[in-house]
């Protein structure tokens, strides 16, 4: 690997993600089945396997990725991971690291009022708020 690698005991990102998710990220062996299964992978800047790798090596660039917000927690990667890792929880942990610093990913003021009141079903609004605000 050409980029940096942090030893596990100094890897703050890994520790935080494992704490919030309850998952053992280091079990990942980079087989890539998550990426081939992910319906959103083409739209992502970090693939699901790339997210796992970044957390494993402590690459905080993943925190600024679009991918963690594109993941819709569909659990396809989770049900297929041969190591039994719940990747949906790992991505949730990465989002939570932002949201717990009071950095929301959605600004409701930017959503048109008529869309909120009439067009969008409540499940769309409530789920987006739960996923994108702290």
């Amino acid at each position: 690997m050409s980029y940096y690698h942090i030893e596990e005991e100094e890897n703050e990102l890994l520790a935080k993600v494992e704490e919030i998710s309850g998952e053992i990220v280091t079990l990942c062996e980079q087989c890539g089945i998550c990426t081939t299964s992910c319906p959103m992978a083409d739209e992502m800047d970090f693939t699901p396997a790339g997210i796992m790798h970044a957390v494993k090596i402590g690459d905080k660039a993943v925190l600024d990725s679009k991918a963690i917000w594109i993941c819709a927690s569909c659990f396809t990667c989770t049900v297929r991971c041969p190591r039994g890792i719940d990747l949906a929880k790992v991505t949730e942990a990465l989002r939570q690291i932002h949201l717990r610093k009071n950095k929301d990913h959605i600004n409701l003021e930017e959503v048109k009022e008529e869309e909120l009141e009439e067009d969008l079903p409540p499940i769309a609004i409530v789920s987006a708020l739960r996923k994108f605000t702290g």
Partner: protein
Amino acid sequence: MEVAYYPGCTLKTHAKEFEKAALKAYRAIGIELKELDKWYCCGTVYSLAKDNIMYKVASVRNILNAQKEGFDCLIVLCSMCYNTLKQAQEFIKDESNLARIKAFMDEEEYKGIEILHGLELLKDKMEEIKKAVKKPLNRKYAAYYGCTLLRPKSVAIDSYEKPSIMERLIEALGGIAVEWPLKNECCGSYNIITNKEIVVERVRHIIENARQRGAEAIVTSCPLCYFNLKECQKDVKRIYPGFEEMPLYYYTELMNEAFNGKFDKGENNNGS
């Protein structure tokens, strides 16, 4: 047979036709859906953070409330509500989890309750369904499960990789169910608010796949899938002018169509 039923917010607003059709269709096969006297928003998505107890409180409160009203089984029609309530129920099966969450609510003891999606209730009712059919459906349908009926594994109402319950229903109603690979792929869900362009591409992909497999309409039980697929087809058409829109139905609407010999979708009719 009377069963307790949890509607959720969207079946009372955007997906009224889903509920209306459900009450009628289930009644036709001898099942009375009795709405809970008291219910709250379930939260729509289950919190995946290990330490987030607060987001699970609303779901657990709904479960305790159903128990308080005397029920040991709760039927949910909205796929997202089903997923959230079912995951919460799985969570409180563990006594230490239950104890943590009970610290936030001073309600009765949890004795255990079954949470079923409306489709699960139909698994053993196929003969009754066939008997209730007055006008068999004669079109080809693609059953679209999406994510929340099938994943994670602990909530799956059927095989999570190769579900067939909706296909069996379509066939029982006289329709033809097409086999297609995208039936359990995500439509983009709440990305509709933050990344609509991604959902539009997903919808194009899903609809075209269903069409290639011969489908003339899509059948679902998720109001968010329904909304995304229906609304985003208009955007797909703007980007790809040759695209032809495909009608969408809730599975309960198909039941009524076959049971009553006429389709009364009213103003929500999507070009069918």
